[in-house]
């Protein structure tokens, strides 16, 4: 048990080091979401939200979408490790193999916290405002990155099945795009066709967005937080063991 904790710690440190040594990784991890933020805010903002404060609506959702994309990077990074042979070394050591994946997911979780804070800061320039005080806002950022961590296991399994880093990138779009666009990230659900609304209202990204909007802006939405918690438990219970099993047997 102590050894497992040590393995996880060492693997997390290794992956955090990556962000410290290559600052551009962090810069690019932040630039894309900021670009999305500016584009969606100025291009769609006027058309979607009449009262002129689209940023307030958009930013919590966009942070959720960024977390989904973050999962892709976790998965691509793992696929690269597998390809260049270092995973073979880890597997030959008397360490916990799950720690190899968990370390990466945790390091990317830390990166996600950083990116979320950057997005909120840029959001302030566009008229976004945290309305629920410091503690609730911190809880919001925590919940959002926790969701990112949980979702990254979906992408990790995908990456372990697809294997090739570039294919992982392409394949992940097929998951992230439908989930984030068929949700209430960008527009309210009310304008969508009824059959789509049925999907949107029940999928985890919508609950994540509602919970986050609640904590950052609108006031707590316990209903959304509960539903999100159930979804996260389910996703983790299914995808974490499957990923670790796939990782163990992949060679």
């Amino acid at each position, binding site marked *: 048990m102590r050894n497992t904790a040590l393995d996880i710690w060492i693997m997390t440190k290794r992956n955090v080091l990556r962000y410290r040594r290559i600052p551009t990784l962090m810069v690019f991890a932040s630039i894309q979401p900021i670009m999305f933020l500016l584009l969606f805010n100025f291009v769609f903002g006027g058309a979607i939200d009449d009262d002129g404060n689209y940023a307030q609506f958009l930013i919590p959702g966009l942070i959720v979408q960024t977390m989904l994309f973050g999962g892709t990077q976790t998965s691509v990074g793992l696929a690269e490790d597998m390809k260049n042979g*270092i995973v073979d*070394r880890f597997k030959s050591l*008397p360490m916990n193999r799950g720690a190899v994946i968990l370390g990466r997911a945790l390091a990317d979780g830390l990166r996600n916290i950083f990116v979320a804070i950057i997005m909120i800061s840029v959001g302030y320039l566009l008229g976004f405002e945290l309305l629920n005080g410091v503690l609730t806002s911190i809880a919001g950022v925590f919940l959002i990155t926790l969701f990112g961590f949980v979702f990254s296991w979906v992408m990790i399994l995908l990456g372990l099945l697809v294997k090739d880093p570039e294919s992982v990138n392409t394949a992940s779009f097929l998951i992230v795009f439908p989930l984030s666009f068929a949700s209430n990230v960008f527009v309210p659900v009310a304008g969508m066709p009824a059959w789509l609304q049925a999907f949107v209202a029940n999928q985890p990204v919508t609950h994540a967005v509602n919970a986050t909007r609640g904590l950052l802006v609108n006031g707590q939405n316990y209903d959304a937080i509960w539903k999100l918690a159930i979804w996260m438990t389910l996703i983790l219970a299914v995808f974490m063991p499957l990923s670790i099993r796939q990782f163990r047997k992949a*060679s």
Partner: protein
Amino acid sequence: MSNKDNVAIDVVDVKKHYGGVHALDGINIKVKRGKIFGLLGPNGAGKTTLVKAMTTLLTPDSGQITIGSIDAIKHPNEVRRKIGLAGQYASIDGIMTGRENIEMVGRLYHIDRKTVKKRTQEILERFDLVDAADRPAKTYSGGMRRRLDLGASLVGEPYILFLDEPTTGLDPRTRLELWKLIRQLNNEGMTILLTTQYLEEADELADYIALIDQGKLITEGTADELKAKLGDDIVEVTLSSNKKTPDCLKALEKALGNKPLLQPNGKTITAHAAKGTADLEAAIKALAKAKITPSEISLHRPTLDDVFLELTGKKTIQEESKNA
């Protein structure tokens, strides 16, 4: 080899297939303690698959693997404490420094921090990496990466070292350096299993060689024993172009009384010369009669190259490695 303590690695009838492909088709090998064992074969022969099975990276479909006295299939984690693996890709983290790489591996063996630091320094000194120790490993040359990889595999003080194609892709000078390091480790008592596609390397380093192809053991023995299996001297004829190759094959077969073998370049032909120089003379006469002027003709003792060509009846290993 009835003395069980003398056997470091015992592989019995190991099979592994992927779909319809038999990567390992019933392999048996025994590696004696303190020796260098060479696993020789072309790309795709199953060498890496066998190393992965022995180092617990994959579980075979059937068969037994004993490392030391431990059943590697039932107790993989205990085996992992006793072995070191250096792979053909030099599996190190380029972002981390050389020192950090070795320390990380040491910590993952769950050795205490102080011991890891001490051993890391010793390894860096031994492998001539002190000056580069605190630079990111991605700035290392190919030879330095291999030395770092080898060094990292030693930090857990393994008692068996697995080297999967340790010199593939290295320039000749760097390869000689690495050979020296491998020999030194062995002189200190380390049991080493190395895979290679280079006959020269197996000949140079290995006390005992197993030749594998298509997941099967073709033959085994010391380099001398393998060469002795072939017995006869070899006449080797090289033509300036492959136009006259068929004529040359015919002429040599007639003169020497055995079927010559054509090397993959299409211009070099080898044949047994049981009567030594008399056969060489006969070959020269036969070629002259057929109006073939070879660019080179020689008589030599069989090499491992000849053994391989003879036993697998196909391409040489060197040719394979060029295609890789």
